């Protein structure tokens, strides 16, 4: 175990050298690094949000809403089919996951027609061809219609993919530095925003579905506060954005929607100097908008965002150019954000914020400083202790420990793994535990010497005997680290990463580098000293 071929020595030293090269950039500032020659790596350790400051948001797409909305569309389709075929129905109602009604007769061809309509309405989602997406069950006269689980899964998956894209567009529009937006599981989105410690504005942007519609105000009646729920058939009551006590009655029919917008920009009204958002429709939107305004001159036209009326200006003349503006008493930041929302498009379903973790930049800096301080002191304490217990061998183990730390840092930089505060704790724990492999070996060597072996043989046998123990002992810790990696997310996951890297590097250095040092030492001893004890 103590004889090394030159190739072996060369490979051990190269592995260490490569790790050191990748560790070095962390000790210089970014400016200094740029002045270095190109062959030196420039990647620094990737700091987690808890160290560099930033915000982590976990969002969930409201899947119940997706199914509900689809059921509502289905509702009117089914009624139409029933009416068209003169089928009497009663007790028609929507629940969260199905439609129910009572019929006297329900012929198979009607069922087929409903299925066909539903499939053709879902072509954007259904890539399964003509396969049906409905489950129709009939129990005596009670019919219930629901979507297949497969279809719901597809619809949700589709909505999440769409939401992801829209979230990305909205955040990009704000000019955030290196945001990371990822899908997690079936219906969640993780957003990491480095450098942002007060994500209020982003939360406000993501909290809105931003569904824009233009609907006519129902002028046949006025809102009656004493009878707050009553609206004429075909109309609905919506709150006003500007005045909490006021409500609008608007016609349900959507004349033009936000999906026809091609651009929206914040600006100022040249006359009043009030912040506004000007928008432009695509060709279809422009012709729809033109027709409606032409036919309804003199009537109020409600601009509705997420079921709230922003304003309802009276149409003065037909607007045929396909562009217009919204003014609603907002300040310039609100106008800017509304323009962003309109440009990015509407979310298919509301997003719910499940979790938020934000760290300010100075707490992060304090944590780094405290971590470095603790690492240095712990490191010095371990070094002194090892020299005290094992003298010269302790010194060799200490050199290995230093190499070890550099290797952990180098590997973190090389793979761009994220270093977090618990990750720093993992490195410090590694300092304490990394010497274990060497301790196991030294104790074995000591035993060998005690039983009369000569130094060279003692080292040889000590390594041999300690091998399986070291592997067993480290694999148990590695198992714990791997489980932690899969179970945890965020900062705690960073701990499992540094712990695992530390296990690999400490076993590696004990079996290569320290062994090399000790073999050089053992072979250099004068014959008279060969039998000396380690801690004499």
């Amino acid at each position, binding site marked *: 175990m103590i004889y090394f071929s030159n190739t072996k020595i060369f490979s051990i030293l190269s592995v260490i050298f490569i790790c050191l090269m990748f560790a070095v950039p962390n000790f210089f500032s970014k400016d200094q690094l740029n002045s270095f020659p190109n062959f030196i790596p420039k990647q620094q350790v990737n700091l987690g949000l808890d160290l560099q400051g930033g915000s982590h948001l976990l969002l969930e797409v409201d899947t119940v809403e997706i199914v509900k909305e689809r059921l509502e569309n289905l509702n009117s389709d089914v009624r139409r089919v029933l009416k068209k075929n003169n089928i009497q129905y009663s007790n028609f109602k929507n629940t969260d996951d199905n439609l129910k009604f009572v019929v006297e007769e329900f012929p198979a061809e009607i069922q087929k027609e409903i299925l066909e309509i539903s499939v053709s309405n879902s072509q954007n989602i259904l890539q399964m061809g003509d396969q049906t997406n409905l489950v129709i069950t009939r129990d005596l006269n009670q019919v219930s219609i629901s979507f297949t689980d497969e279809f719901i899964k597809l619809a949700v998956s589709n909505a999440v993919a769409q939401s992801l894209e829209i979230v990305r567009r909205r955040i990009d529009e704000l000019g955030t530095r290196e945001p990371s937006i990822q899908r997690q599981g079936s219906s969640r989105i993780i957003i990491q925003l480095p450098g942002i410690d007060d994500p209020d504005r982003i939360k406000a942007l993501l909290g809105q579905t931003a569904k824009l519609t233009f609907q006519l105000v129902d002028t046949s009646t006025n809102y009656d506060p004493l009878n707050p729920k009553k609206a004429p058939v075909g109309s609905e009551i919506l709150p006003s954005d500007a005045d909490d006590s006021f409500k609008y009655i608007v016609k349900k029919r959507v004349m033009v929607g936000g999906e026809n917008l091609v651009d929206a920009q914040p600006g100022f009204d040249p006359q009043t100097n009030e912040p506004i958002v000007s928008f432009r429709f695509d060709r279809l939107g422009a012709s729809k908008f033109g027709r409606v305004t032409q036919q309804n001159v003199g009537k109020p036209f409600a601009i509705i965002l997420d079921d709230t009326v922003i304003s309802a200006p009276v149409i003065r003349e037909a607007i045929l150019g396909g562009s217009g503006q919204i003014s609603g008493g907002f300040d310039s930041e609100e106008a800017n954000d509304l323009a962003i929302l309109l440009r990015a498009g509407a979310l298919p379903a509301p997003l719910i914020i499940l979790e938020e973790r934000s*760290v*300010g930049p*100075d707490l992060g800096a304090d944590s780094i400083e405290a971590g470095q301080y603790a690492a240095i002191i712990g490191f010095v*304490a371990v070094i002194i202790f090892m020299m*005290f217990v094992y003298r010269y061998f302790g010194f060799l183990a200490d050199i290995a420990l230093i190499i070890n730390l550099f290797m952990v840092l180098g590997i973190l930089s090389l793979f761009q793994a994220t270093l977090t505060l618990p990750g720093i*704790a993992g490195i*410090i724990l590694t300092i304490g535990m990394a010497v274990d492999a060497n301790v196991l070996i030294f104790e074995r060597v000591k035993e060998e010497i005690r039983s009369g072996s000569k130094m060279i043989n003692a080292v040889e046998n000590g390594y041999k005997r300690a091998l399986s123990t070291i592997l067993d002992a480290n694999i148990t810790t590695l198992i714990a680290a791997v489980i932690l990696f899969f*179970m*945890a997310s965020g900062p*705690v996951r960073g701990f499992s990463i540094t712990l695992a890297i530390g296990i690999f590097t400490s076993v590696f250095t004990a079996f290569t580098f320290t062994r090399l040092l000790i073999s050089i030492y053992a072979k250099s001893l004068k014959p008279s000293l060969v039998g000396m004890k380690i801690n004499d």
Partner: protein
Amino acid sequence: MIDIAKTKINFLKSRIITFIFSSILVVLSIGFFFVSGLNFGIDFKGGTLIEIETDNEIEIAGLRDNLNTLSLGDVQVQEFGSKNNLLIRVEQQSGGDQIQQNVVEIVKNSLDSHLSSEVNFRRTEVVGPKVSGELIQSGAIAILAAVFAMLIYIWFRFEWQFSLGAVVALIHDVILTIGVFSITQLEFNLPIIAAILTIVGYSMNDTVVVYDRVRENLRKHRSKNIIDLLNLSINETLSRTIVTSVTTLLALLSLFIFGGEVIKGFTFAMIWGVVVGTYSSIFVAAPLLNYLDVKREWNTTSAVDSTR
């Protein structure tokens, strides 16, 4: 200096006493867990946590009273590391995930109007009911999975008696760690789960080293009395056990003292775990082998180097 490896301490002599001692601690831990429970942090019970820093000292009682008038339920305010640093905890609001988001804004507005000096918001965490429920579940699963994985690994590498002894020691360590958090009512949050998992790894590491020696001695001294053999094995590995525990504790103590407030709970759990894990390897895991009827006839031909 003293050569620790030459010790001949009779560790198993007082095994009944140490078993009773351990059992009392385990029963106490379980008792406290059921009586006073754990002081769960927002990771596990949901809610809002805000860490603030101000230029001048803040009068905590006044701030607490002020925040408690916001009708957000229970609001806790405590000093965090220094007099200018405060931690504000607001309990989870009823009404689902989206509601929790309002808390931060309400508290921030109240702080801005209540405090004269400028407030620096160092940390904001909001965990809704859905996530906290999942975290507690995945934390429990992770610990169980780790213990189970160790059981399988030791069974595979040794034999079932060893794996049973090691896992009993492991469960002992986990229960005692949860117990100390129940007794002290220190905050129990996500990093503590990480600490417990590391303790599982560390304690097993210690146990494996002793067991490895036991197995080796079982091959070497076929006729030796099992109690003497266990004692011999513990003594032979004692030096290593102490040195590794000391270096690990040195590093952890440094982290505990200088590493900052945020990871104090985590470091405390680790320090406790290293002490308990070291104790259990010597006084629980090894002596248990005495009762588990370990195999004496190891196949020497398949062993790597059992003969000298």
